[in-house]
């Protein structure tokens, strides 16, 4: 075993090393980069943390950040829940709803005006 690799990898890592943490994950798990001070290590999770979205690829499943105004998202450009102060409309976070739509302060979404 390479001297630099800790005997048992943490959590869902398939391979890991002291300095970099996880290098690859067990099947189905998502790879996330975590920074603490100067250090940056890889960790493996069953789903991406809040503020991140997951994309599956043949060789790795990765978490990446949503946009700054978005809490949860499907892809970077398609938000599913906006941060407070923003209204969700068709995957976008808006400070004001477009004309013809009204702001629903309960769901924090722009909805059609019901006559």
């Amino acid at each position, binding site marked *: 075993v390479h001297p630099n690799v800790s005997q048992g990898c943490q959590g869902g890592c398939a391979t890991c*090393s002291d300095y970099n943490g996880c*290098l690859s994950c067990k099947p189905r798990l998502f790879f996330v980069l975590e920074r603490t001070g*100067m*250090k940056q290590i890889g960790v493996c999770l069953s789903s991406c943390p809040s503020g991140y979205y997951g994309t599956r690829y043949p060789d790795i499943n990765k978490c990446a950040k949503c946009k700054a105004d978005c809490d949860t998202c499907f892809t970077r450009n398609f938000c599913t829940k906006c941060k407070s102060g923003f209204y969700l409309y068709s995957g976008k976070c808006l400070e004001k709803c477009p004309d013809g739509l009204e702001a629903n302060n309960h769901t924090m979404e722009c909805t059609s005006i019901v006559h």
Partner: protein
Amino acid sequence: AVQKAIIRVIPLKVEPIVLEGEFANVAEVTPAEGKLLQSHPLSLCNTSEDEHTESGFITIVKLEQPDRDPNPCLSLANKAKLAGERGARAILFDITDDESAADQLRKPRGLSQPVVLIRGHDAELLMGVVNKNREAHVKIEVKEPPAWPDYDVWI
């Protein structure tokens, strides 16, 4: 001839250390300084954006053995280029476990941010600083090559 680099590492509130590395020809040989930040090798890929937005840092990448990353997302030269585009003023590669990196980074590419290779005991000291401290400042300087002796040339 390999151009040596002096790496002054100044952790906050702990005694500084001075290490040595070598400039890689892929980039310019030029001094640089900034805050030290480790980057995971997989953070330097097009599909992953490092969450660090502030620029002006110096990044250290601990390279793993090549067989542990059989098809890397980018070449080392392009990883260095990407780090520069993300605001790194210099890129340090710990090549203790991947000596082939030196060959990969030998071909000049004119990258503006210097790329410095570090290995062995010096690399261990540097990674030790990363592991045990929250913050450190780094200065990279060009070590003066010994002046070439005088030759009397007769024609």
